[in-house]
């Protein structure tokens, strides 16, 4: 009787028990627990319903052949398509209805990330040691929209769109490639700096751009004071200003400045627009002769400058500059301190300055830096950074819990504080807020460099318009930079109203008068159209272009009918007045002769301003032109429209000229 023979029964029994253990281990899967919970919930929710609840235990799987995705999320997320589970706890909560996103077709992970194949919470949600593509945090969720819809989702995916815009506005594209998009150089050119700014100011600026101008897009390179001095020294190489005296009259200068409504774009003493730089300390920044040049012809200095050419006479400019250099000094600047800084710069090393300027990649945003080759795109390519592998991202010495070691978190923190992970990294600090960082992270994540099948693509939102007026009008638009504030055919700013149909809207006399001496129609507006020195030929050209090009047939076709409307008839006008004040209470929002609401434009003298066709057209459907106008829509009968039009056009200013 051998040893092995003796232990045979024990071994056999043991292996049998192990087999049972094995079966148990396989049977005992976490998803079952969730399904039992769900079943219970389902039962109590559907008590009283006629047909019995049928619920099959087991795996649920969505398989998209085209996307090559297998998602088993619904094995536990069982209430997705059942509205009764709207307020049920996860994992049973109903999926919110987002337009046509039928997950029967799209699956889950295509948008949400995570591991669709997995059937345990840890593996499915991630990250795990062997699967880093974790679920996207809600904050970054919108990045997936771009897969099918493109990235210009102003309304549908505001965060993504904001990130997209910021990426280019803040000059990220200056250093980082992004999906074959054209490079944008956002900063001003830095030629003849020595003729432009004072050395102590440049030093302070480099030490902390936001201290001088809080809204600036210039990031902080985190220079040490020595480095700042060196870079300044390098940038200020070359001859200084000629020192020609700018002698003018501060008094008239001030009036011109105020009349010219510089505050529409520039902030002065904390008040005004954000488009141009802060002005109230400009005298301690730039030399008077530079200021003169800027006011005279900004485009000659920087072709992309947003500042219009006002067309002042030299005398006026002298006055303005004189006033500015007297008034707009940096008051809390200490003379000795400034002198010390100037001294520091004077003793700075140009060579080291140059090295720093190159290393820091100033050329990413600034052109014409003397002695530096303009090679942009120093940063890594972002074109597919949204799907970068975690192992390529360096978390430095920062201890990050494994669960948080994800690509989105890395990007987010990198943008939030670029030098977090390692000393001596290049990327400068923009001091982005959490929201801003989130937006840019979302955009970066959307750069997946991958295509979804054609049947899935559905571009939404407005692509950027490439409208560029030519000829005489084009020159004018360029000279006065109209598109900084106004939008034409989808191109331009949001500050002032859209001019795409201006020609159909306003009357010749009014627009010509307005261009000469613009006043505001909307009571509540701060930004106001600056009074440019428009020349008569320009004025004619503007109107000609409006009348020929910026028109819509919808309005032009009304000319016939409107002529037949007998808008002058006093009876009709009186009807209109009734409707205006009593039936529809238009005065709640519109003013006539200082009476009425402040929401809509002032309607005094509309008869001189708007073309009757336009008024009719607009009353028919206020949303037809301005999609988001706050105007309510009334189902006005043609008769009412006729009457209202007649009344509005008849309104005359009670102020006697």
């Amino acid at each position, binding site marked *: 009787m051998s040893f092995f023979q003796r232990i045979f029964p024990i071994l056999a029994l043991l292996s049998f028990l*192990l087999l049972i253990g094995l*079966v148990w281990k396989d049977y005992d899967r976490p998803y079952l627990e969730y399904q039992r919970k769900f079943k219970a919930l389902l039962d109590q929710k559907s008590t009283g319903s006629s047909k019995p609840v049928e619920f099959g235990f087991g795996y649920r799987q969505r398989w998209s052949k085209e996307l090559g995705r297998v998602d088993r999320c619904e094995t536990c997320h069982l209430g997705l398509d059942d509205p009764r589970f709207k307020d049920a706890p996860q994992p049973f909560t109903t999926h919110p209805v987002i337009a046509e996103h039928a997950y029967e077709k799209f699956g889950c992970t295509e948008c949400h990330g995570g591991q669709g194949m*997995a059937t345990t919470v840890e593996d499915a949600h991630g990250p795990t040691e062997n699967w880093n593509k974790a679920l996207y945090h809600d904050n970054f969720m919108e990045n997936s929209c771009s897969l099918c819809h493109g990235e210009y989702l102003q309304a549908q995916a505001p965060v993504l769109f904001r990130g997209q815009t910021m990426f280019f506005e803040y000059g990220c594209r200056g250093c980082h490639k992004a999906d074959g998009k054209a490079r944008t150089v956002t900063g001003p050119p830095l030629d003849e700096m020595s003729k432009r700014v004072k050395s102590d100011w440049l030093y302070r600026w480099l030490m902390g751009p936001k201290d001088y101008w809080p809204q600036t897009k210039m990031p902080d390179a985190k220079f040490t004071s020595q480095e700042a001095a060196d870079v300044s020294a390098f940038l200020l190489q070359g001859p200084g200003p000629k020192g020609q005296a700018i002698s003018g009259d501060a008094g008239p200068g001030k009036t011109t400045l105020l009349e010219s409504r510089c505050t529409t774009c520039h902030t002065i003493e904390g008040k005004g627009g954000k488009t141009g730089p802060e002005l109230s300390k400009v005298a301690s920044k730039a030399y008077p002769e530079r200021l003169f040049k800027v006011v005279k012809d900004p485009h000659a200095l920087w072709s992309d400058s947003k500042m219009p050419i006002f067309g002042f006479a030299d005398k006026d400019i002298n006055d303005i500059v004189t006033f500015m250099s007297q008034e707009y000094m940096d008051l809390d600047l200490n003379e000795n301190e400034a002198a010390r800084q100037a001294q520091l710069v004077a003793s700075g090393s140009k060579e080291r300055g140059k090295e720093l300027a190159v290393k820091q990649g100033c050329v990413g945003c600034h052109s014409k830096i003397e002695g530096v080759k303009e090679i942009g795109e120093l940063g890594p390519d972002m074109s597919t950074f949204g799907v970068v592998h975690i192992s390529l991202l360096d*978390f430095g010495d920062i201890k990050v819990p494994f669960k948080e070691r994800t690509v989105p978190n890395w990007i987010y923190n990198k943008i939030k504080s670029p030098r977090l992970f390692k000393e001596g990294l290049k990327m400068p600090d923009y001091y982005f807020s959490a929201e801003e960082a989130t937006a840019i992270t979302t955009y970066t994540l959307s750069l997946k460099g991958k295509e979804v099948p054609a049947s899935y693509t559905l571009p939404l939102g407005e692509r950027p318009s490439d409208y560029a007026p030519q000829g005489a009008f084009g020159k004018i638009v360029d000279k006065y930079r109209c598109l900084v504030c106004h939008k034409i055919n989808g191109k331009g700013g949001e500050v002032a109203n859209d001019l795409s149909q201006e020609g159909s809207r306003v009357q010749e006399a009014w627009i010509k008068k307005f261009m000469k001496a613009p006043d505001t129609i909307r009571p509540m507006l701060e930004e106001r159209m600056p009074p440019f020195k428009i020349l008569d030929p320009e004025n004619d050209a503007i109107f000609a272009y409006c009348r020929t090009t910026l028109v819509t047939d919808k309005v032009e076709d009304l000319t016939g009918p409107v002529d037949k409307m007998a808008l002058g008839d006093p009876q009709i006008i009186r009807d209109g007045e009734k409707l205006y004040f009593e039936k529809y209470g238009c005065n709640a929002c519109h003013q006539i002769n200082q009476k009425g609401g402040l929401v809509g434009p002032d309607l005094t003298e509309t008869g001189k301003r708007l073309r009757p066709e336009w008024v009719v057209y607009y009353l028919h459907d206020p949303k037809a032109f301005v999609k988001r106008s706050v105007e309510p829509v009334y189902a006005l009968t043609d008769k009412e429209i006729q009457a209202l039009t007649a009344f509005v056009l008849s309104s005359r200013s009670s102020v006697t000229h």
Partner: protein
Amino acid sequence: MALHTRNETFENGSATSGIPVVSKWLEDKTFGLGLINISLFVILNVTGILLMFYYAADTDRAYQDIKDLQFVITFGAIFRNMHRWSAYAMIALVFLHMSRVFYMAEYRRPRQLNWVIGWCLFLCTLIASLTGYLLPWDQKAYWGMTIMSNVMASAPIIGEKLKYVVLGGSEIGQNALSRAFDLHVKVMPLIMSFLIALHVIRNRTDDLIANPQLHGDAEVSVWPNIICRELSKFFIILIIIMVAAILFGAPLEEEANPSVTPIPAKAPWFFLGLQELLSWGAPFWFAIVIPNMVLLFAFLVPYIERGQTGGGVWLHPSRRLQNILFTAFVTVAIGLIILGAFFRGPAWRFYWPWESWPLH
């Protein structure tokens, strides 16, 4: 009918009479390793066939299929674990079996041929494990294979050609996967079954030649004794494998991704010794010459060795030199693997296991 095995002859104490014994405990123990290895081979075949039902050797599907086994197929993960751990166990135990044979000087005439067959079986085990290693098509597999193919490529003259033909291309792709699959599920099992059969039969006949007195007397009836005995050996290994399959999941990393190299990329553990060697100097010497010399030497031991005393017992004093040499070889081989597995970090630099690696 009557049937005898080596163990039995020892258990009857017939072969060792009158020979000075080194250790009472070790005396004439074989631990039934041979049969245990056969049991493993059986388990591997059964689980392997089962796995094949759900596996397609297609670079687009392989990984997905393994994930399915892991997550949604009843007993899928279990069978996969059993297969993986049996394979690893078999490598270790075949090696142990060989050591045992060497320490008992059982490779001698008339068993020299069986010794060589045994060595071939060991190599087959390694190749089978290696080809199986690629099939999950995850990072571990992909980069392990990459290392191995580069080791091959480092051979003189034929190196590049060899790599080219094994991968069916210049890099690891669909061809490499298909070939690994075919080798793993068809060629190797076939060869191994054949060799094992040969091994067993020769073992039996050699016994009779070595101990003619086994004829006739000292019979033990096959039923139930021998069956029990061999079954219990099978159960021992089955238990170990099942415990392992319950406790540890077979590793499955991210999907194979040529653009992301794990730092450091390591060969399958059973070839880590080779990779370690390779890191020491010229591939030609360290990857080709030295291993092959060792191999050749091992093959030829029966024909080289002069002495005739001390057969059939563990560590017979008269074989001190052989034992020292062999023990040295074993410890070095295992040492190299342990070194490569636990003491090597990025750029194959030395790190203590508890040291953290600099990631960049």
